[in-house]
């Protein structure tokens, strides 16, 4: 049997019951912060890149982007490689793994006169519904072609549902070029 000890609330004296003293103490702390912020010396202001007016960052004039860690997961985007080849071959594994079903791919042929005709397949259209996306990064993890990456873009806004769907063009815009990836479709292939 566990031993049960009954605790008693501390008895308050008259002054404490009135809690005026606590309010006064609290006000002193607030006043202290207010004075420090007016002098531009808020605690942590420098490291958090704030305006100095308190530790509040004045978003969007000030952004925290430099502090985003390497592993930060922002908007998913498609990338091209050194040879400007679009890496996605529309295998649709990301569409399959996507937990909120945000990805929709329309696969298509690569025409025979294309320099990358040997890859045979690429997405005709690639849509990610950013209202649905939960930034889990499973698409990046599952991709066998190193074609989709979660970038550091987090401010994904729009005024309509259609605007919130990133199409292929927009995804390549966000993704840009990424170098140093495995060159699977090389001359030996």
């Amino acid at each position: 049997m566990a031993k049960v000890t009954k605790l008693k609330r501390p008895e308050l004296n008259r002054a404490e019951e009135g809690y005026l003293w606590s309010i006064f103490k609290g006000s002193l702390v607030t006043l202290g912060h207010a004075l420090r912020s007016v002098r531009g010396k808020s605690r942590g202001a420098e490291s958090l890149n704030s305006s100095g007016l308190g530790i509040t960052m004045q978003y969007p004039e000030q952004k925290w982007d430099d502090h985003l860690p390497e592993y930060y997961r922002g908007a998913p985007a498609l990338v091209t490689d050194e040879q400007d080849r679009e890496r996605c071959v529309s295998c649709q594994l990301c569409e399959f793994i996507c937990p909120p079903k945000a990805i929709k791919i329309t696969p298509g042929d690569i025409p025979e006169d294309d320099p990358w005709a040997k890859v045979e397949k690429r997405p005709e259209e690639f849509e990610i519904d950013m209202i649905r996306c939960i930034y889990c990064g499973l698409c990046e993890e599952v991709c066998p072609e190193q074609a989709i990456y979660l970038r550091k873009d987090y401010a994904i806004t729009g005024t309509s549902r259609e605007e919130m769907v990133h199409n292929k063009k927009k995804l390549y815009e966000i993704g840009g070029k990424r170098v140093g990836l495995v060159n699977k479709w090389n001359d030996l292939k």
Partner: protein
Amino acid sequence: MSDTDTKLLPKDVAAEKGLVNVQIDGHWIQVPKGTRMIEACKIAQKEVPHYCYHPKLSSPGNCRMCLVQMGMPPRLAPGQDPEYSEEGYQEIGWMPRPVIACANTVAENMGIRTQGDLVEKTREGVMEFLLINHPLDCPICDQAGECTLQEFSVEHGKGVSRFKEDKVKKPKNVDIGPRINLDDERCIMCSRCIRFMDEVADDAVLGFTQRGTHTTLTCHPDRKVDSNYGMNIIDLCPVGALTSKDFRFQMRVWFLKETNSIDVNCATGTNITLWSRGDKVYRVTPRRNNDVNSDWMPDSHRLAFHKQVHAESRLTEPMIRQGQKHEVADWRTALEAAADGLKQFDAQEIAIIASARQTNEELFLTRALGDTLGCSEMTTIERFGEADDKLVSADRNPNSLGASIILNLPSPGARLSAIRDAVRSGAIKALVVFSEDLLADAGFTQEDLDQLELLISTNTLANPTAQASHIVFPTASFAEKRGSMINVSGRLQKLNAAIATPANSRDDWEVIRDLILTITGNKNEVFMIEDVLKAMTQAYPEFEGATYSKIGDLGYTVCDTGVTIPLIEKEKARVANREIVG
């Protein structure tokens, strides 16, 4: 050994029934004499991976994937008596080398091991050889997801390649026929396609050239794989070497839902699987039914669904004709207009043209509609083409037999010309047409249709008859409805719905039911298609006891027509000849 004289040994018990005793992974089972080892393992529910073996084709035994360990009782010395264990079996002497399970048959007291060190090492080795030159194409390969090379390399492969040299390069994306693409790098030389084209399609255009790792599957230089059965080699191919041009890069197979149904392009009633995602059918493949279509289907039927299901001319709204144009109406208005229109005519002035493309349930309700109207003029349209001595029947209607049973039609052709004449003479003023185009197939002319005072039709696609109709009801295609049909050999089979009917179109049987109810003003008592089938079981002896679960995936014979399917007869002869397993 006095008690062996009285007690029968297992081998004698089995021999009486034409069976043999086989030990598979430690368990003794009895299988018919002459069974292939791989089939015996299947009976024992032990998987033996294989590529080249196919029960409907000859067994060359060239992929070496099905290697298992085999053992027999040791050979006796002269004069030595066999020794039996307590259970009555002889001790098995295991062979030190594996044998292929696909081309060897079982024998009395044989032992088979599908597991164990020797077998697993062998599979690993074979897998490694198969993967040496196989490209890493899975992300762009249409077979991914249903590729046995993928599956077995997960199960038996190493996960990494020890092959440091360059892979052998072979032709990729080769055009070997109007419907088929060949990728030679992906080929694992199982030769199933070569054997199919030779043995089943009777058009041996494929073969291997070169030797060793350079072996290449090639089409005869002056020929293409243009046989009407060519696309079956796509289903046969265990890897992505042969892929369909029609299905190329359309959708990954793991997204597709499989629905068992039957083909509606001829009276054979080929069993098929519909592969759909959302509201779209992506492909149709044959489904094994040894009494109807074996494992195959003709290409013409396989690709017909594009024009039937996702055509641009699909009708999606009920319509009423105002002058020369059709106006969209809601279902109630259109049904009431049809009922009111039909009530203006005497029973003798109305004729119904049903269709042998309708399901039994629809035909049954069509007959009920005729009874409601008191109309006795009813027929279907015959449709004949050329039979191909394999699977395509000369009768291009999928349910001619059902129509003749339900509508009691001995000669629909004669009835049709009688109706046509009556329309021309003005004796028949109103026509109700179900799922048929009178201009294309029934010999009617535009003037005949213009002469009619009332033309009501149900149609899936826009056609001249729908154009001429006063009221048009949009109905479901074969991929969107349930129901049963009777094929050319008297087999009752069923359709299943893979996708929903588009927009405002409805299932045919519901339309006919609603039309009857609108005419009579009765309250609806038929809510499910099961109720229709139940009513049919009481009306026709052929349907006695029929339920959809009894029909099942393969159907059953309800009447004997004496008609056989040529390809099935050929297959039976080959099985009897012990060329194939069947």
